[in-house]
């Protein structure tokens, strides 16, 4: 570097923070965990918010279910129905969960909980053991469900037309009213 600022990061330091895991498994540490262990760990650490079967509690995210809902109204997007990569589950649980006490699970516990979430989505059997070895073999149902932002071709031409200034439509009707829904917080909240 030409400013000579900062200092070289030590390997232990990089190891401590470089925790992210990519779809190709880069970043995944050695370890393993079973659905069975995962069920117990999930029940103790996660179920209060996500439900015993990962079905969600109240407004907290549902982690299971929703298969086949993506093309319907109010799709239910869960690990099973929506997430394209298993690495994302492992990485997020490892770094960010449980909410309020992040990073308390061991590596093996994260494998186990991830296995349990797969199980609760009917993606693996109850005797499944997830490890760094078989990690890339798990198939995620919606893996092919994503396309890269295509607004440049699908929208931009349409939304770059000179805008109409007069007589843009013959008549205008109100089709929906927010006040009828009345879900706005009071000013006095």
């Amino acid at each position, binding site marked *: 570097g*030409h400013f000579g600022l900062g200092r070289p990061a030590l390997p232990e330091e990089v190891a401590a923070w470089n925790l992210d895991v990519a779809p190709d498994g880069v970043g995944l540490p050695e370890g393993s965990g079973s659905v069975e262990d995962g069920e117990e760990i999930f029940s103790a650490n996660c179920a209060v918010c996500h439900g015993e079967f990962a079905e969600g509690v109240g407004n907290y995210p549902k982690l299971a279910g929703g298969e086949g809902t993506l093309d319907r109204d109010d*799709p239910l997007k869960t690990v099973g129905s929506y997430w394209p990569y298993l690495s994302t589950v492992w990485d997020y649980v490892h770094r960010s969960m449980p909410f309020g006490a992040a990073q308390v699970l061991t590596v093996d516990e994260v494998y186990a909980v991830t296995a349990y979430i797969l199980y609760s989505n009917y993606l693996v059997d109850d005797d499944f053991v997830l490890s760094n070895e078989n990690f890339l073999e798990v198939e995620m149902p919606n893996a092919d469900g994503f396309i890269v932002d295509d607004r440049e071709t699908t929208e931009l031409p349409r939304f770059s037309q000179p805008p109409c200034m007069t007589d843009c439509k013959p008549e205008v009707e109100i*089709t929906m009213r927010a006040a009828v829904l009345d879900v706005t917080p009071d000013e006095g909240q």
Partner: protein
Amino acid sequence: KAGLAGGGALVAGGAAAQEPDPLITEKQPWAQMWGDGVDATPYGMPIEYESDVIRRNVGWLTADTISSVNFSPIHALDGTITPQGCAFERHHSGAIDLPKEDYRLMINGLVETPLVFTYADLERFPRVNHTYFLECAANSGMEWAGAQLNGAQFTHGMIHNMEYSGVPLRMLLEEAGVKPEGKWVYVEGADASSNGRSIPLDKALDDCLVAFKANGEALRKEHGYPVRLCVPGWEGNMWIKWLRRVEVTTEAVESREETSKYTDTLADGTSRKWTWVMDAKSVITSPSPQSPITHGPGPLVITGLAWSGRGAISRVDVSRDGGKSWQTARLAQPGQNMALSRFYLDIDWDGSEMLLQSRAMDETGYVQPTKNALREIRGLNSIYHNNGIQTWWVKANGEAENVEVS
């Protein structure tokens, strides 16, 4: 106290007073006695009468307030700067308390030398200043399926606009030496959500900013003190707060915030990913449901905000008849790159109801679409990137309501 119109009303001004106004003819306490001295508020707050101009959250939107959002009171603001004190917040594990002394920033991955910077180190790099808007990709998201929330603060308040001072991310990356294989950076925060996003290296080297001041002073706690990332024109979730790590990678990490969230599901069930740019958008902030017209017919200021992640705003049109006809509004200042523009339309209101809309255009020629035009392409389940034209139904009594029109 002001009576009905007298003879003078036609000559000049509105209703003439019949009785002298005691607020003028009687000596008021503030015109005789002391106010507060210069030691009263070493750091001041808004006056009590403005206590309604605050961030508000919507309880039912999220499971709790720790991973949640509140909204800037844009209906009550003017100009373009958003004060930090009322600029909306979005946290994934709450606003953390991170002293400058304990702050570290790591650059790792595909670099010649992984580096660690202290806060003091950052202050030694050349600095730049830029004013940018930050819009959450979910702004107006509750309105995808139809009009829901009755106020500009709630429909469009996940936005703010600040003058940032900081170091170009490019300089920090160059300091570490990016290897030729590097194509992306993964940026991550120090909070417990460890919110992380992948950004193409080109953008990182172009205009991303490692900021430590906003509107002249230190970032507020809730905006990422001591250091946040600015990703001009791109969705707010990428503007990592409490920035602690930048890793150069070959591929996107596909983290939770760029797969489970911030992807846009189309009608056929496939989803767009990597939808980073915030398209041109605008909203009339007054009159609006929380800022009704409180006077009768006559002069009325219609005002609002416009912005585009594609560049500077070049024009804003306003319709009073729900989009049948449009008038070009006045921009308070020439549009600035990826910053809010304030527009005004000064009208002589005849007292009849209006269906108010605004339509932003940017320097690339992009024209803000109607909500229905968006829905035709994207369906109803998109959540994010709702930049459709907003309609306020202003009634003859001056009250306004969030509606949709044919």
